[in-house]
């Protein structure tokens, strides 16, 4: 058999057909976003699926004019990155304490914290809204930052605890003998070591929080403070007749995420090769 791929066997055919079909569906959204963003509404009506015959930037421009796309991108960045700062700090602190500092009640607290991962956000969304409204914090970025942090810490603390548990206790003991306080040990030794885990956690939470609709829609209602996810979601409802414009908005909103995704892939590879070379 002269197949360049070498390992081809005829019995693979059904699998390959299935894989080809699935791949098509996976690629479709990206192709669709790219193709449609550069069509005019008129062209889309006659040619929804094909390659743009009259390439135009009109729809993309429309998006920036009709919506607060730039501002919302800024809002998303503020809210998500702000949350990440607190999430990473508090998760690593808690993880370190659970893993290395034995204290009374640690197990109980850990179980309590982990149990919140089973709680659906929908049960607390009403009380939280009432609380925030009473505090005048609706349309304030901090309300969302606090909520995002609270819901992300359980998993983060769990992850960091697992990471710190794997660090041999000799390091702790040597540091203690050298006279370092627990706090110093944390920011001099533990925190720097855990950067790969922190980055992983950061990327996972970034994607999760950037895509959140429910919380950001409820707590940041003013068009000035809206996040990009909310703007995209409401685009579809409001401009239902102008498909290319909506897709342009979607396309722009996707770019930051996909960028983070791609960068994350590379970091992962670097981390693995660094670990091997050590």
């Amino acid at each position, binding site marked *: 058999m002269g197949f360049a791929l070498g390992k081809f066997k005829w019995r693979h055919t059904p699998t*390959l057909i299935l894989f080809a079909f699935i791949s098509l569906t996976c690629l479709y959204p990206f192709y669709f976003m790219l193709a449609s963003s550069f069509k005019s509404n008129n062209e889309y009506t006659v040619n929804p699926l094909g390659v743009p015959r009259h390439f135009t930037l009109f729809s993309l421009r429309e998006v920036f004019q009709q919506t607060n796309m730039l501002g919302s991108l800024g809002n998303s960045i503020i809210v998500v990155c702000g949350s990440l700062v607190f999430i990473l700090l508090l998760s690593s602190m808690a993880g370190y304490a659970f893993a290395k500092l034995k204290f009374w009640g640690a197990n109980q607290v850990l179980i309590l914290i982990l149990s919140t991962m089973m709680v659906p956000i929908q049960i607390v969304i009403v009380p939280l809204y009432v609380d925030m409204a009473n505090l005048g914090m609706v349309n304030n970025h901090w309300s969302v930052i606090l909520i995002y942090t609270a819901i992300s810490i359980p998993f983060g603390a769990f992850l960091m605890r697992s990471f710190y548990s794997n660090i041999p206790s000799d390091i702790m003991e040597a540091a203690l003998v050298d006279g370092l306080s627990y706090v110093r040990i944390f920011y001099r030794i533990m925190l720097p070591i855990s950067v790969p885990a922190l980055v992983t956690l950061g990327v996972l939470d970034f994607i999760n929080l950037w895509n959140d609709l429910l919380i950001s829609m409820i707590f940041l209602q003013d068009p000035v403070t809206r996040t990009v996810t909310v703007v995209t979601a409401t685009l579809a409802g409001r401009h239902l007749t102008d498909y290319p414009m909506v897709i342009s908005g979607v396309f722009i909103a996707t770019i930051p995420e996909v960028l983070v995704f791609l960068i994350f892939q590379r970091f992962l590879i670097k981390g693995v090769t660094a670990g091997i070379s050590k």
Partner: protein
Amino acid sequence: MLATPKVPTEPNLRLHRKFLGKYNINITGMLFVLPGFALIVGLIFIPIAKAIYYSFFEWNGSTASFNHGNNYIALFNSNVFHTVLSNNLILLLTIPLWVLIPLIVAFLLYLEPPGWKVFRALFFLPTALSWVIIGIVWQFFFAYQGSLNAILRSVGLGFLQKDWLTYPGLALAFLIGTAIWAWFGTGVIIFSVGLSTMPSEILEAAKIEGCRGFRLLWHIVIPSLRRFIEFYTIYSLIMAFTQMFGLIYVMTQGGPGYYTTTGEYYVYVQAFQNGDFGTASAIGVLLFVIILVVSIVQIRLNKGVD
């Protein structure tokens, strides 16, 4: 003056490790956990208690009157809620698909057909997209002016064209199908990790016995991956019941009627479209209970298999 070397300071240890009998009071430890724990108590635990409290009131945000559980009674009698519950039930019944599809795909990848690395990367692409983006793209696909109908036209099946998402059964089916599609890349990765931890001796033994393909999957692989399957089943269930809001909001808005409104979406409808905070809280509580019950049942079932 020569600097004196730092002496190992025992006092430091004593400061932070106080033993009161058998209780190890490590203040630093407690302080490190405190901020995170305080946030969780304040923004999750206390609101849960409040939600349970609110669910017993008729409340629209300004006037409240105690309701003696009328919210719950009204829900159980409401046809809309019956539809919502049946949607959740249908969703629950599709969970095996949520788990099996990535499992089978991961297994097929494991057999390493040509180009499998490329395919694996492609299958993971949807996870780079948000639910909102996915919802919009696929909603356009199923819309009357959309791609599906365009494809049907181009192969001469134009008479089949419909506004696909306006049919109750089809809307729910496509909604769930989209969710499965969006989610299956994650499952493939998780199960691929699991497959890579399978000891090769078992595989060698199986190969010698002539066990291949489907039989290999059923008798060898699935039992080895049991922990992963259990974990991923519960994970998918929680995702399906609590994380589909964005998808529903952009794809069908819970419609047509209430035929794609799941419990989580109904909370939003009641609270922020109808302004009925009491009922919304009640639904939230019920949702929580349902998830707890199903998860516990799941875990008990799995323990029984051990």
